[in-house]
């Protein structure tokens, strides 16, 4: 939908054509396995924090790929790095290293991790 700029609320559509993500490329360089994710949700299903909070590693990865990194901080700040996601991930992703790398690349160290 064309945004003429007169709306009271910003468009809720996903602007994937605007995703130009050098930060994600940097994350991929640090943790190449990030693109191995097949969004099966095993991490979220076993997440100790996910039962009570909005933490979902599956959604964090997707949000970063869609250029919506702002949405990831409220999720990631609940992570306790317990490592259960790493135990169940069928793709063998080092989720601990991934989460710490996200914090590093997206400068979240002081805020969350």
């Amino acid at each position, binding site marked *: 939908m064309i945004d003429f700029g007169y709306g009271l609320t910003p468009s809720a559509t996903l602007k994937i054509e605007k995703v130009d993500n050098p930060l994600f490329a940097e994350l991929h360089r640090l943790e190449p396995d990030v693109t191995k994710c097949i969004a099966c*949700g095993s991490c979220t*299903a*076993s997440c100790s924090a996910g039962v009570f909070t909005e933490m979902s590693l599956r959604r964090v990865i997707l949000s970063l790929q869609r250029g919506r990194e702002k949405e990831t901080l409220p999720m990631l700040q609940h992570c306790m790095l317990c490592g259960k996601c790493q135990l169940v991930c069928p793709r063998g992703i080092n989720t601990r290293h991934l989460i710490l790398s996200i914090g590093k690349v997206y400068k979240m160290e002081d805020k969350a991790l």
Partner: protein
Amino acid sequence: MSQNIVVIGGGPAGIEASRRLRDLGYTPILIEKEPVLGGHLARWDRLFPDGVEARKVLEPMLADLDGIKYFTDTEVSSINRLKDTWVVKLSNGLSAQVRAVLLTTGFDLFKAEKKEEYGYGIYERVITNADLEDWFKSGAAPQFDDVKVIGFVHCVGSRDEKAGNRQCSKVCCVTAVKQACEIKERFPEATVYCFYMDLRMFGRKYEDLYLKAQKECGIRFVRGRVSEVSEDIDGHLFVKAEDTLFGKPLKIKMDMLVLMAGMAPAASTAELARMVNVLPGEDGFFLPHSLIDSPCTCAREGIFYAGTATGPKTIPETLSEAASAALAIDRYLKSPQK
């Protein structure tokens, strides 16, 4: 005297290829390590998408083995190159010198107990797709009482790097949908869930079966892989997954869980590959010359493949590949010798 050809593996691919080779005027020597021919098909009750009985496919094949020498309970001891022939020695003491060897060694069902988090072999109410077929085939009633909630877990040991099986096993999605419909017929009051990562309904009529499962059988599909299973004091199961389309984790109590064990390379693949001096693919299956236009040949002269030895396939795909392997062998044997 007609020319001998050794066919290793007496499943659908090996039987079908042997019949085709016999029809072309050769004498196939079919070798099977198990006591009976038929491979995994002999164990299966019904086939997707229409629910045709597996025995209706297998029995006509087994009734048509005239002109084929076959040995059950027999393994290959060695295969050696001698000039332009292969010398195949068998565990029963016999040996054959042939110009062509066809490898139809198939697949092994993934050992579901390897995924410990699902509790197969630990929790009584966790069974596999093969166990369910055994049960359907034997007609023996389940040993569990009050089966009201049943779950199917797709991709057990498939697309799983930790289990060493990165590939999609291709047939389990539609098998799960078929089995979910069948179990619903046996337990009409039960609620049946399928936990999937992606549903791959690639074949003709598969999508129709999937729609039927939802419309007529009321199967509930949840997009999310089961992450872990635990047991309560009565032996009922707690299953954890994320409904990834909704974006929320869930935990549900179940009375029975069926694990869709996928296809893994046959244990014999590595040893046979060493004997004929070929390198299997990274995934552990035999690697043909080309996956596009020469799926039955390989770099070694006189060695041919058919069926799931080169990766997961359906029964019709296996049978047609067996036929094309027979033609490839015929063409090879008729070409002028170098």
